[in-house]
């Protein structure tokens, strides 16, 4: 009797388990297939520049001249690579101190007001479409730079400034979470030894949360690195390395969005754009690995 009862109960569970397993397996299989196909597609297109069109990798990465319509066409992507790195790193340099200070204020100085009002406002920034950022940058920052500095106002400085506002929420949110997750005991231990609030912040809070803060910065850089539209609107899009921050320049993303409509699929110019996309993708992977590595170094 007892045995048959057990069997009756056990059956539907086996079915549930099986359905659950198969369903989740299908989902993950779909995800993996999609990712692998995208990577394969971008890689095959991007690599054909080298294997089909015989453009050398060194020339692409270190070449200074980008002229796909020239006779013969030249594909030097260094100006784009330089533009991408300089705008996103500069954006992080501007945004990181602001974000950290905002996070410290929200968690350590005015926790009630901060978490209730400031954090939602900062997270709101993340929801603003990038075209709006670009438009504001074009209408406010570019004219301002044009008036104050020599040049057209467009360029790396304008791009970095727009990007820095865009990545503020990313870095601030991660920094805020890291500060909030700090065990209360650590701060109490520091206060109990007679430290002031600032001493506790820079001797205990910041060093302990440093890996998480770095994670925020890297994710911010990754976001800035991949951003296309807003940057394209304010950077000027001249395919060379500028001599100043206020001179027209280009990034990998802006080069792709600007030219992709003008090239025929399968042409060498089109393949070269895919190579730029491949570089972008590769860099994103690098950022993800850096984040993983930093997470592993967390002290708590």
């Amino acid at each position, binding site marked *: 009797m007892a045995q048959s009862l057990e069997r009756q109960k056990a059956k539907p569970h086996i079915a549930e388990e099986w359905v659950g397993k198969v369903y989740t397996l299908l989902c993950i299989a779909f995800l993996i297939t999609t990712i692998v196909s995208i990577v394969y597609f971008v890689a095959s297109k991007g690599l054909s520049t080298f294997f089909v069109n015989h453009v050398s990798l060194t020339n692409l990465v270190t070449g200074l001249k980008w002229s796909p319509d020239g006779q013969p066409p030249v594909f030097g992507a260094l100006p784009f690579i330089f533009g991408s790195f300089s705008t996103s790193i500069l954006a992080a340099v501007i945004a990181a101190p602001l974000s950290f200070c905002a996070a410290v204020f929200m968690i350590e100085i005015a926790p009630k007001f901060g978490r209730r009002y400031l954090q939602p406002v900062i997270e709101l920034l993340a929801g603003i479409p990038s075209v709006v950022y670009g438009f504001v940058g074009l209408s406010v920052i570019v004219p301002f730079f044009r008036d104050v500095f020599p040049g057209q106002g467009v360029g790396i400085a304008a791009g970095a400034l727009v990007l820095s506002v865009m990545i503020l929420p990313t870095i601030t949110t991660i920094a805020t979470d890291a500060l909030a997750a700090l065990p209360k005991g650590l701060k*109490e231990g520091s206060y*109990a030894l007679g430290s002031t609030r600032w001493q506790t912040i820079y001797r205990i809070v910041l060093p302990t949360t440093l890996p998480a803060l770095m994670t925020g910065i890297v994710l911010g850089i990754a976001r800035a690195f991949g951003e296309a539209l807003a940057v394209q609107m304010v950077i000027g899009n001249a395919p060379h390395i500028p001599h100043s921050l206020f001179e027209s320049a280009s990034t990998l993303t802006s080069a792709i969005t600007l030219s992709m409509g003008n090239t025929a699929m399968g042409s060498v110019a089109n393949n070269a754009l895919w190579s730029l996309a491949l570089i972008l993708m590769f860099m994103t992977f690098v950022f993800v690995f850096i984040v993983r590595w930093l997470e592993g170094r967390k002290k708590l």
Partner: protein
Amino acid sequence: MNSLIEINDLDLFYGDFHALKHVNLEIPEKAITAFIGPSGCGKSTLLRTFNRMNDMIAGTRIEGKVEIAGTDIYSKEVDVETLRKRVGMVFQQPNPFPKSIYDNVAYGPRLHGISDRKKLDEIVETSLRSAALWNEVKDHLKRSAYSISGGQQQRLCIARALAVEPDILLMDEATSALDPISTLKIEELAQELKDRYTIVMVTHNMHQAARVSQQTVFFLNGEVVEYSETEQLFSNPTDQRTEDYISGRFG
């Protein structure tokens, strides 16, 4: 015995909650005073008034006086950082900083402006010796404070507190997260330290109070029910509620 801490008619509120009611106490110098009582009776709250750790809890209000060596510590002239330097604290959970053993002990002295390497070395050694930890860690002072056991971490926290040369050491259930052997070590350590420091310990464990302390204060619902020599309080309590508590009828 001279009393070092004097509490006069102290009331403490967390918002609307009346956490301490008309507390009057005198805590003697260079002895161990134990605070016992059920959870939420106010014993930790009172302990935390001695180094003003309650200041950090929003909505805390205090009436009455807490005097340490004759100074009202809640008066405006008192500098909280200086007060906390004189009144060290060890917490329920060992809370070493994510730094090396050495840097943990040197943290306090560095805060207060000592940067001379030789002087720091000396302070670290003396403090670790006082906390009976020196022999166990002297060969790996550079290792992370997280690499040692919980009991050692708690003694490290004691060493860290001693490094700023306090007069008073507050122990807020400092052994409740530790195993019996580590607990015994901390109790022995407290016995040794009481000749040099005034120790106030909050404990859940009545046997610990009976073993270690010279004076015991019994709290109930924010009030001091009974305060006397430890032996007296445990063998011959004057209040019925104290007797009920120590005989295990509640709590």
